[in-house]
């Protein structure tokens, strides 16, 4: 399971960085949400530090740690809000400047 998570993490990071580096602002947002997902997977992996069983009181010390999973919940909520804000910014630039191409947006400024 850890190998699967590690591979998924690596793929998400790679695809995320690729998209963040594109000129299209919409792909930037997509890449950012992939990176957020990767970060959440990373936190989940770190919770397997003390064991991989479900964190439940009766399992005792062998279970995983519940705290990182709580962190993920918060991070997902924050990530959702932040992604919505990024989409709003991209929409604003699309409506007011007529483009979502980052190079063109910088060119408009000059």
């Amino acid at each position, binding site marked *: 399971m850890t190998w699967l998570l590690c591979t998924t993490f690596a793929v998400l990071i790679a695809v995320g960085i690729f998209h*963040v580096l594109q000129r299209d*602002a919409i792909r*930037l947002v997509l890449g*950012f949400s992939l990176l957020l997902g990767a970060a959440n997977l990373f936190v989940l992996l770190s919770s397997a530090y003390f064991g991989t069983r479900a964190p439940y009181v009766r399992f005792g010390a062998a279970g995983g740690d519940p705290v990182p999973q709580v962190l993920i919940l918060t991070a997902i909520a924050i990530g959702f809000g*932040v992604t919505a804000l990024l989409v709003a*910014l991209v929409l*604003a630039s699309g409506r*007011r400047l007529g483009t979502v191409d980052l190079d063109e947006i910088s060119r408009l400024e000059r």
Partner: protein
Amino acid sequence: MPSILPILPLLLGFGGATLVLVLGRHPVRLRLLVGLLQLAILAAVLLVLLRTLDGTVLVQRAGGWRPPLGIAFVADRLSALFGATIAAIATAGVAYALADAEAARRHRIMALFFMLQAGMFGAVFTGDLFNLYVFVELFGVSSYGLVAYRGEAPQVEAALKYATLSLLASVLMLMGIASVYAQTGTLTLAALHEASVRLASPPLYLFSLALVLSPLSLKAALFPLHFWLPDAHSMAPTAVSIVLSGAVVKVGGYGVLRVLFSHDPWVGEQVGRVLLPLAATTAVGAACMAYAQGDLKRFLAYSTASQMGYVLAGGALGTAAGLGSAVVYSTVHAATKASLFAVAGAAEELSGERRWDRMGGLAALSPPLAASALVALLSLAGIPPLAGFAGKFAVFSALAARGAWLSLFALVAAALINLVAVGRIWLGMAGGPPGDLAGSPSRPKLVLAATTAILVVLLGLGTGPLFEAGRAAAVQLLDGRAYRQAVLGP
């Protein structure tokens, strides 16, 4: 000592934002409401400062749970001093926004100012690493909105750049926090001291810590994470620039210092070795870039990055004198920069120009504004008896005491470049034939510029107490026993 005070400014910020959204549709009522709420926040933070100046550490535990289960909000000397600076600058920013015909009519913008403050106070008073992340995101999100609210092309671009970079850095912070937790088993800042002594792999821990510190350094505009700042700070509406340049960068600096020195001293020493050269590079590089700017607000933005280099250089030393100078410099720079942005905003309205070389004749057009500009510029340049001199002197002497000659040389060079740049700008703005009057700034804006300039003068006169408070905060941070005992219990 258990107390509700550390969480009070945060609650007032959240409550204020909600109240403004619900009740603020009527312009007159909005002004009254915003003014009262802002004064309440200022009073609450000053109360925290008064209660902590004698060395008391105030703790508020969420739900009454003790750490490691519960999450604590803590106010010690350091966080109270930074909190007071933030509250004062935010008050200046909100006052400027109220004097602005456009911002004062829109209750959603005023609500964002309160959310921004709630986030900053949360970040300053929290005693938990993950909470720090949450509050950094919160004030970040509010500030992207504030930069972009006019919706003009340069503002949207600046906000997009600022948001993207900060958000990417905060993804790193999340991973850093997870790996710090995996290695120490705690997220409570007070418990990191003990945990950092018995680590399985110190190099791995330093790497995780670098991930945690990267978004904080980005907010503090540390080289090489500074390049969003000139756009965001110069393109934002002036009221927002005041808060961004005066307060928001300071929260980043505070976060770096707090996280770093919550650990055992070896961590601060190791990270300081990297932080000091980076801070010195920031100071010199940004000073050179500032020299090359023709746009007044852009000059101020680059100068903010340069001045944050001084703050972090002082902090990176890890000595009581160094950290004390970081606190003093933050306060002094916050007041100076708030004053300068207020002046710049008023001068822009007066002349209709953004470039300082086209603002000529300010002294003839508006003597009070020119006087405020002179005071603030001289303080930025570090001319004695003004506040800026005290800050620079504190940082320089801390560097000299530690024998960090190369960094000292770099900072002195940055100060000289800054001095020349400031002199040039003053001659360009005040001297020369008066240009055409494009408009006249409203009287409240002029009063605000003058008030902040007077604050700079007062800070310069009250250097002694400020130095003592900074030094006491540094000693308390480095010692850390009172903080840990208050949070973790005996």
